[in-house]
C-alpha cells in the first residue's frame, strides 16, 4: 500500500511547475551566494581623525590606521565639531580624536590623550570598530615605548603579550563557520515547508475526501507524505555538500556518515512539525503563516546567528526545545571539529525524542472523519 502512496507523491512533485525548480535553485543560491552575504566580519569602517597635536607621533598613528585593512580613512578634520557633523551626516562610523599633548604624554606616559567615538546605530560595527581601534593604538604605544626606552621595553609596568590561535577554523574564516549552519537552514526550509503545504492543499482541492473514504491506515498515509520528503532532503543535502567541497574545499572533519545520520533524524523532526501544522490548518495561507511563525522563532533561538550562551536564561531554556539548535550545533561540531557520534549523545537523544513525538502527533492529528 505504502509504495503506491510514495509513488503518487513523487509523481506529483515532479509534475509540479514550481517545486522541482526550487529544489535546484535554492541549494545553489544558499551555497554560492549566502556564505558571502551572511558575513559578520566587519571591514571598511570609515574613520575621521581629529588631529589636535600635529606631531610626528600623531601622523605616524594616522598612517598606521590608514594602512589597516579594517579602516578606511575618510578625512582628517581639524575640529571636533567638524568630525561630529560628518558622523551625523552618516559619512563616518568612527572618530578618533588626538589631543594636543599626545606626543608629550606618550613619551612621559601620562594618562590618555585619545578619544574614540563610535556610531553605535549598527552596534556590531560600532563595537568592533572601537575594539579594533583600541588594538591598533595599543600596538602603536608598545612601539613608541620600545623606541624611547631602548633595550628596556618594560619600565616598571609588566607588558603581557597575548597570542591567540583559532582552533578548528585556523583563519577565522566566517564562510567556513556559516556553511554548516546554512545547510541547516536549507533543510529546515525545504523539508519544513513542503509537508506543511501538502496535506492542507489536498484538503483545499478535495482530493483528501477520496482518500479518507478508503481504509488507508493513518500511519501509512503520514509515512507516504514523510518518506518522499525525507528522500528529497537527503538528495538536496548531497548536492549542497558536494558544492561545499567543490567551491570552498570544505569537507567534514568528522565522519560523513554521522552528518547523514543526524540529517535523517532532523528531517523527520521538521517534516513532522510541518505535517502537524498541515493537519490542523484548513487553508494553505493559514498553514504557511503558522509555519512561518514557528520557523522564525526556531531560527532566532537556534544559535545560528547569535551565540546561545549570551542569551538570557529564559531564552536559553527555550532553545532546549528547539530542534534547530541541536542540529546546528551538531553540524558545526562534526564539520569543523570532527566530533564523533558518541560525543554528540545529548543532541542525538533530544532529536530522537522530538522525531518520535512530532511524527506520532502528526499521525494522531490526521483525522479521517469529523
Amino acid at each position: 500500500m505504502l509504495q503506491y502512496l510514495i509513488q503518487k507523491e513523487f509523481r506529483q512533485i515532479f509534475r509540479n511547475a514550481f517545486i522541482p525548480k526550487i529544489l535546484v535553485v535554492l541549494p545553489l543560491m544558499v551555497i554560492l551566494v549566502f556564505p558571502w552575504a551572511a558575513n559578520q566580519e566587519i571591514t571598511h569602517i570609515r574613520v575621521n581623525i581629529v588631529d589636535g597635536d600635529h606631531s610626528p607621533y600623531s601622523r605616524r598613528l594616522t598612517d598606521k590606521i590608514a594602512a589597516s585593512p579594517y579602516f578606511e580613512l575618510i578625512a582628517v578634520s581639524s575640529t571636533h565639531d567638524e568630525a561630529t557633523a560628518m558622523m551625523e551626516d552618516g559619512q563616518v562610523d568612527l572618530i578618533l580624536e588626538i589631543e594636543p599633548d599626545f606626543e608629550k604624554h606618550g613619551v612621559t606616559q601620562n594618562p590618555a590623550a585619545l578619544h574614540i567615538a563610535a556610531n553605535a546605530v549598527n552596534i556590531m560595527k560600532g563595537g568592533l570598530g572601537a575594539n579594533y581601534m583600541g588594538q591598533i593604538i595599543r600596538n602603536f604605544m608598545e612601539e613608541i615605548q620600545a623606541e624611547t626606552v631602548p633595550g628596556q621595553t618594560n619600565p616598571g609596568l609588566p607588558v603581557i603579550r597575548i597570542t591567540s590561535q583559532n582552533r578548528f577554523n585556523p583563519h577565522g574564516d566566517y564562510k567556513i563557520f556559516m556553511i554548516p549552519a546554512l545547510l541547516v537552514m536549507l533543510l529546515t526550509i525545504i523539508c519544513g515547508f513542503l509537508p506543511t503545504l501538502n496535506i492542507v492543499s489536498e484538503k483545499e482541492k478535495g482530493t483528501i475526501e477520496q482518500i479518507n473514504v478508503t481504509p488507508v491506515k493513518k500511519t501509512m498515509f503520514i509515512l507516504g507524505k514523510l518518506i518522499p520528503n525525507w528522500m528529497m532532503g537527503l538528495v538536496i543535502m548531497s548536492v549542497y555538500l558536494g558544492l561545499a567541497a567543490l567551491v570552498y574545499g570544505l569537507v567534514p572533519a568528522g565522519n560523513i556518515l554521522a552528518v547523514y545520520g543526524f540529517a535523517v533524524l532532523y528531517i523527520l523532526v521538521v517534516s513532522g512539525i510541518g505535517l502537524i501544522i498541515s493537519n490542523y490548518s484548513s487553508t494553505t495561507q493559514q498553514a504557511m503563516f503558522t509555519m512561518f511563525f514557528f520557523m522564525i522563532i526556531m531560527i532566532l533561538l537556534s544559535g545560528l546567528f547569535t551565540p546561545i550562551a549570551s542569551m538570557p536564561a529564559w531564552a536559553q531554556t527555550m532553545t532546549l526545545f528547539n530542534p534547530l539548535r541541536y542540529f546546528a550545533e551538531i553540524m558545526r561540531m562534526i564539520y569543523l571539529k570532527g566530533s564523533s557520534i558518541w560525543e554528540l549523545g545529548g543532541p542525538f537523544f533530544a532529536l530522537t525524542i522530538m522525531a518520535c513525538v512530532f511524527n506520532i502527533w502528526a499521525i494522531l492529528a490526521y483525522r479521517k472523519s469529523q
Partner: protein
Amino acid sequence: MNSVIQASQLTKRFGNFTAVDHISFEVAKGEIFGFLGANGAGKTTAMRMLCGLSKPTSGQGLVAGYDIAKQPEEVKKHIGYMSQKFSLYEDLKVWENMQLYAGIYGMNIKQIRPKIDEKLHQLGLFDERNTFVSQLPLGWKQKLAFSVAIFHEPQIVFLDEPTGGVDPITRRQFWELIYEAADRGITIFVTTHYMDEAEYCHRISMMVDGKIEALDTPKNLRERFRAATMDEVFYQLARKGREN
C-alpha cells in the same frame, strides 16, 4: 429483507443546527436506492455519515454489517464513494489514479494491471489512459470517478450527485454503468436532482429539512401524491419544507 444499510434514528448536529434529524431506513442488497431532497436538505451529511467520514451525533447505522460510529474503517473496506466534488488527482494520469486506489485497497499487484486495462476498455477510456485527469471533459471525469469507486468491487457504492453538470448522453451512459454494477450485486446509494434519474431507482427517499418525508418506489410515490411525474412529487414535498 437482506439489508446492507440500516439506519435508525441517525442524527447529525452542527452546533444548534440539526442537519440530519433522526432518520431511519434500510437498503436491500443489490438495490438502487435514490436519495432525493432539495439543496441543504441534509443528503450529503447523511451520506458522509454512512461512509464513515462524519461521526453521527446520535442514532445508529450499520453499513455492510459494521457500525458506522464504532468501526468506520471496517465500513470503508466494503464501500465505494464518489463525492459531489470531483476528488481524484488532476495531476495524475487516468491509469495512475486507478492504480493508486487499487493499491490503497490492497489489491494484488499482479491483478491491478490487467484490471485497469479491462476497466479502461469498458469505459471507452483506453485511448485516454495516459491523459492527465485535469484534461478530461467533466462527463469522462465522472465516469472515471465512478469506476475508481467500484474498482475494488465493494458491496455498496455511494454516489453523491454523480451526474451534476453532465450532458444527457453521458448521463444515460452513466446510468448504464450504474445498472451494470447493480447487476453484479453492488448496492447503489445515489443522490440526484434529476427526476428522470429518480425514475431509474428501485426505491426513493425524499429528504426535507433533515427528515425523511417519503420513502417508496417511484410508482407508489406518484400514486400517493396523485402526480403524473416525479417532478410534481418533488415540488409538493419540497414546498412543504419551505413553508415550515
